[in-house]
């Protein structure tokens, strides 16, 4: 479609390797970029099947399924995984609930300070994690709040909230307003309109906000590191273990997370495409 150059008169327009590369240069670079993105992932997956010679899983030794058969074999790993999962679930539930309410409030109502509210939502996303993390820490220290799982949950809710509000707001903005009007024309009262029309339409936005928020919480290291006290989340475990050498089980968890996430995305696509039909 873009290739509308008039053919040069003196040269036969013959497909050659050089020409193909020029025409597809952007694709070549795009694929190189994808390879760059997947280089470390390939490494993580590959070394989950390694049987390291000593404790350090850095050099390829021999193929083995040991780590996959015994994912909890590295001490403390599974505990940290559970900690991350429950903290992620709690933080996601709170952030999604509070954030969805706020998104409705911000996109459906005019009020004074709406512009300020938008800036306030954007600010935490524009704050470097070290600043957000260390500022929360100074607050907790000043108030004498003991660091632990509770402070981690608070910190996670804090940074997930903005992402939830932004995501749900985007969904609300993209919604067809005539559907709600139609419901009201058909004598649905506001409550019915909300639960029968508005909510089902916004639900996919809320679900993706929750998924985003869980993955942000699950993977957060910098903010957690400031506020965790002695609570060990999965990233905290990896950080601590990295000094001593990571067990292949860590790679198993990394690979497993990737597989689970991809499965969820694929199922989500499948469900939404079946619904669309």
């Amino acid at each position, binding site marked *: 479609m*873009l290739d*509308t150059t*008039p053919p040069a008169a003196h040269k036969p327009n013959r497909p050659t390797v050089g020409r193909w590369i020029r025409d597809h240069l*952007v*694709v070549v*670079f*795009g*694929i190189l*970029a*994808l390879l760059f*993105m997947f*280089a*470390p*992932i390939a*490494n993580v997956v590959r070394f989950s099947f390694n049987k390291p010679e000593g404790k350090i899983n850095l050099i390829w030794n021999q193929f083995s399924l040991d780590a996959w058969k015994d994912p909890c074999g590295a001490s403390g790993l599974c505990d940290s995984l559970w900690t991350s999962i429950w903290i992620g679930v709690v933080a996601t539930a709170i952030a999604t609930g*509070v954030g969805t*309410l*706020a998104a409705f*409030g*911000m996109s459906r*109502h*005019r009020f004074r300070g709406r512009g300020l509210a938008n800036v*306030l*939502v954007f*600010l*935490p996303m524009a*704050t*470097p*994690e*070290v*600043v957000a993390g*260390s500022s929360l820490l*100074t*607050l907790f220290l*000043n108030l004498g709040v003991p660091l632990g799982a509770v402070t981690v949950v*608070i*910190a996670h*809710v*804090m940074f997930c909230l903005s992402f939830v*509000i*932004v995501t749900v*707001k*985007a969904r609300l*903005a993209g919604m067809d*307003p005539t559907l709600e009007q139609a419901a009201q024309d058909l004598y649905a009262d506001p409550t019915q309109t909300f639960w029968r029309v508005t909510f089902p339409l916004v639900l*996919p936005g809320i679900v993706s906000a929750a998924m985003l928020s869980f*993955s942000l919480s699950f*993977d957060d*290291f*910098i903010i957690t590191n*400031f506020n965790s006290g002695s609570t060990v989340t999965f990233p905290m475990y*990896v*950080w601590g273990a990295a000094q001593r050498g*990571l067990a292949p089980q860590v790679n198993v*968890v990394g*690979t497993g*997370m990737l597989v689970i996430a*991809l499965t969820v*995305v*694929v199922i989500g696509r499948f469900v939404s495409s079946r619904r669309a039909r």
Partner: protein
Amino acid sequence: MTAAAAAVAETSGLSTPPPPPGPRSKKLTPLFLLLPAALAMLVFFVIPIMTLASTSLMQGSLSTGFRQTFRWSNYGEILSEYYPQFLRSLLYASLATLMTLLIAYPLAYMIAFKAGRLRAVLLVLVIAPFFTSFLVRTIAWKQILADDGAIVHFMNNTGLMWLFDHLGLTEGRVLSTPFGVILGLTYNFLPFMVLPLYASLEKIDRSLLMASGDLYANSWTSFWKITWPLSLPGVVSGTLMTFIPAAGDYVNAELLGGPSTTMAGNVVNNQVRNFQYPASAAMSVVLMLAIVLLVAFYVKRSGTEELV
């Protein structure tokens, strides 16, 4: 996936239409809807930032306690001792942002214009690396870039290492050098660049490109006159979403760098570990102010002020 895309689409300047003035907008409803989020923002974001600013002027130690003495020299001390780290943060983050832009643009362009039915698959692939823990991926880079690894051999054999050594980016090796840290930053924040770029490229009206083709513009001219200007909102939000976290990062500097490549984030983290709270707070405030000023200047220059 759609969530991240939606999040960046929103920040990339997609202006939300004004709320419909429905008959239901009673005066108090927005208050109740917003109250929990507003309280959370106030207590856990605004107040902490204020506490941070206040702590940065305190004096004392862990054993004697910290008192507010408005000690402005905290700033002078931290800057005179750690200005290299501070400048390095800005430099590394800028270089990494430039690299992510160069790598992400062709990728986003390919997904938006050339992928056809593979588009959804490619978008999933772009965010898939997100799901393998950030730390685990960065540690994998440590493995890939190891001194006896294939990358270092390749760079040695092709003379790339010689070139990079002379640019001051490497020192006969990649780990513990600026190049290692910048590469890590580039890698880790790449999706934050690809998604907003994709969001703005995908919105471009294809008939504009056809029209320019009909008017005998070659594909290069079409790109610079149409595609690039229309993708600028994506470029601006992508660079912000890369630069801001990169400037505050310390994980890449810690894992892929060495003593000579530490950044402002490392200073904040180390001061906290040593219970030097006023010093760490002062460094955080300086970093935050620098980022806010740079971002404000950049957004003003690029003319996309509806971004926030």
